[in-house]
């Protein structure tokens, strides 16, 4: 693992950055979004599969013409997947990237506090 190690003044710049409050904030911001969202889409998907396995009566209810609950539920999985992807992109651009770039510059210029 060769990295263009910055001229370190004293300690390891990565260690210093990792312990900085700004990095802790970035870590918190990332985890606060991705962990709950992962749990949410996984449960939502699991609910869909479980209903497909065990709630056949409910899934076969007709809504319009030949379109039933199962089809709409399946299409909703597409909708939520696209939606979560879009939400994450927005969150990452607004909340994560600016902090990450600032910290990156600090580490690479070796001026982590």
């Amino acid at each position, binding site marked *: 693992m060769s990295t263009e190690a910055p001229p370190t003044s004293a300690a390891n710049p*990565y260690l210093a950055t990792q312990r900085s409050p700004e990095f802790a904030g970035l870590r918190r911001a990332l985890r606060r979004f991705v962990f709950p969202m992962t749990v949410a889409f*996984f449960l939502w998907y699991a609910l869909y599969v479980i209903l497909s396995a065990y709630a056949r009566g409910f899934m076969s209810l007709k809504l319009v013409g*030949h379109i039933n609950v199962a089809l709409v539920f399946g299409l909703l999985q*597409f909708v939520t997947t696209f939606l979560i992807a879009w939400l*994450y*992109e927005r969150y990452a651009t607004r909340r994560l990237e600016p902090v990450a*770039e600032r910290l990156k510059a600090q580490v690479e210029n070796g001026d982590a506090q």
Partner: protein
Amino acid sequence: MTNARALTIVLFVIFVLVTLVITVWASRQTRDATDFYAGGRSFSGFQNGMAIGGDYMSAASFLGIAGIIALYGYDGFLYSIGFLVAWLVALLLVAELLRNSGKFTMADVLAFRMRQRPVRTAAAVSTITVSIFYLLAQMVGAGALVALLLGIHEGQTFAGMSAETAKVATIVLVGALMIIYVTVGGMKGTTYVQIVKAFLLMTGAIVMSLLVLGIYKFNLSTLLGDAAAASGKGEAFLEPGLRYGVDKPGDPTGTLISKIDLLSLGIALVLGTAGLPHILIRFYTVPSARAARKSVLWAIGIIGTFYLLTLALGFGAAALVGGESIRAQDAAGNTAAPQLAQALGLHFMGDLGGAVLLAVIAAVAFATILAVVAGLTLASSSSLAHDFYANVIKRGQATERQEVSVARIAAFVIGAISIVLAIFAQGLNVAFLVALAFAVAASGNLPAILYSLFWRRFNTSGAVWAIYGGLISAVVLVFFSPVVSGASNAMFPNHDWQWFPLSNPGIVSIPLGFLCGWLGTVLSREPADEEKYAELEVRALTGAGAH
């Protein structure tokens, strides 16, 4: 049929020639290891998103899912959803962090703060196992498909070859092409092949879907109604349960097993994608984490659109071709999409139209297989060269030039082994190997990746336990499952050593993989390397020092 066959071959030859030109061009751009392994990290988010689509949407996706929908209705759609939702794991938890902290392979991240040799060995074993399972399924499928798509039946000959010889010839041809793409073109060549394939596949699927919907005046309900009526199964065709989680009247245990199997499959599909080595290495082909994120967003858009289109293709095939004529060609339904193409061409443009559209879609199917097997060969040879040769055997002392030479040789050897295995396996039912590859990726690779990135305490022993624990439990459970022996449609139908009831091991092996990773960590006295973890975490989250 003869016209279509000739045209299929012409189109396929054109595809092969175009991709070979691209490959040779790419080889001129390939100078160092970063070019060979990661395409010089020069692709844009959109290009990589297309390539991910091309790498991911295998024949099992295109022909398989359309076929399952055509024969079993709704359950094929249910299957495709797992393949899509899975990308959220890659987007939220893996893509950017991996891009920032790794270099060429999955093991770069896993071994980052661990002892190199044991972790890299485990990662290489897992990468090669997953890739070879997946490769075999694709290559055996290619052999069977070519006979079907070219319409060579038992007892007939084609260019002097019997059906059996034609299958072997196809496997050898596919194998030879993937070896050429990878050894000559490296990641750059492979990526362009995948981009071209994704473009062809999407165009084909969009055109066919529009034609199907055109026949039904864009009324989905009428299409579904027609498909259900033609299937002979009525409304049940539009509901879950004909293929997965089947209700077996009078057999409560059988019903329970079948339903748990469905859940197990669903979990493995969702968690497997972000652990597939040939997908993971694609994140290294872009210049930044931001581009890695964009490529997953594009991939989600492309793959999601594609699976929505398979709904029109599958139900269209059920309504316009009919289950009986599909089963007459292939019991698994793999010819549903090409047969639909023929029917659509016939409907809109007469005999010639039927022949042309059939030929185009058959050629797209070949292109699909080639792009996927090239990606798999590249992933396994990269891991063999970068992880096993350079870091285990040479302990990090190999030069870039040596490493790339070994990667090329490895691609050749892995390709050759796959050809031989595929020829031997061609009479066996190996379709389960795709699901097994996902199960291994979800059980071994994913726990190791997530623990590495998010758990400070994780150590060498934990990583090794997670990978081997997940890998071995998934493989052993499948070996003793009804897909390998003890069932009429098993790989070895005349033998019976089956005791594990589920066809999909995920529901057991995935928790086991996570448990092994945790146990291996807490039972080992080795402390986690604080400094290296700080470096990994800071690099992963900020992109500092990224390659």
